[in-house]
């Protein structure tokens, strides 16, 4: 499974406007967002802003870069495809 990343701006998301749409094949599966300098020590990290898989994620980690986020999401979606009800949130 390969995820495709497309940059996007989130104009209504406070200071956290820089984001990436995450596609699997042609479908949108997630949006990740880079934290602005309003977040102190966390500034620059990537946050799972929205996840469009069937189960709502409540405890995703923050990612150092886009690659790390993509790897985490790939693992998550692979698990989800194998065991739809048993995917771990972390």
């Amino acid at each position: 499974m390969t995820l495709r990343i497309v940059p996007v701006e989130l104009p209504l998301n406070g200071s956290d406007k820089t984001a990436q749409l995450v596609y699997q094949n042609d479908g949108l599966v997630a949006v990740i967002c880079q934290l602005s300098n309003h977040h102190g020590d966390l500034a620059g990290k990537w946050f799972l802003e929205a996840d469009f898989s069937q189960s709502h994620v409540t405890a995703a980690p923050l990612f150092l870069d886009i690659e790390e986020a993509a790897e985490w999401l790939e693992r998550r979606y692979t698990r989800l495809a194998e065991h739809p009800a048993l995917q771990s949130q972390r």
Partner: protein
Amino acid sequence: LTAFVTRLNAEKRTRALISSMLNDIKSPSEKSSNPLILKLASLSVLDPEDRAILSDLTTRVSDVPAGTDLIREGDRPDGVYLIMEGFACRYKVRANGARQIMAYLVPGDFCDLDVALLQRMDHSIGTLSACKVVRMDLQTIQDLTKKHARITRALRTATLVDEATLREWLVNVGRRSAEERIAHLFCELRLRLEVVGCTHQNSYRLPVSQADLADTTGLSVVHVNRALQVLQGSGMIHIEEQQVRILDEQELRRLAEFRSNYLHLGAEAAA
């Protein structure tokens, strides 16, 4: 003689007046600073004997560092813990490490009067900040509730308020936006801390981290930080070094749809 009596009476009145003025001056300092007494007196009528008993109960205070469990899920209850200073919380942790905080215990709060009826704790209680804590053993609590009806009534009322607060927190987590959740929590803490003498004008110390707030409100740390930015940016609150200052209480209450009825404050005044 008449003139003498008149002068004597005048002197008596003056003395009585001075004495009453002195009492007025003394009374603020004589007012208890014991948070348990302040809290229970806000919920029910206590007489001086009740206050003396509560004061005696709370003499053995232990210092507990931040992040310490007082009792864990699965433990056999060994007493009732009372917070005299600092913040503690009730919480549960999932297998993946995710924590949900279900209640804050601020000065004057205790857990749980009837805990002896339970075989095992179904949740944990731990300190969020450094705390001063009193542990009352189960026998002490049983003696207290047998012998002192007014104190028992106040303690049971406090337990009902804890349950009402939990219901309000459930609405918070289930049905309010990020900003509304934080606003509601800040309105509630302002009143709860005011009762026990832990506010200064519109400010109070909130010795918890953003991660603690996230686990309290069911939000991510990122959403907590964003909500705090919005509330500060709109001039409703100001936070600096764990000190929360409420700048526009009316607007903060309006945003959170905060009604203090569930805290049942002012029962003594109404009694």
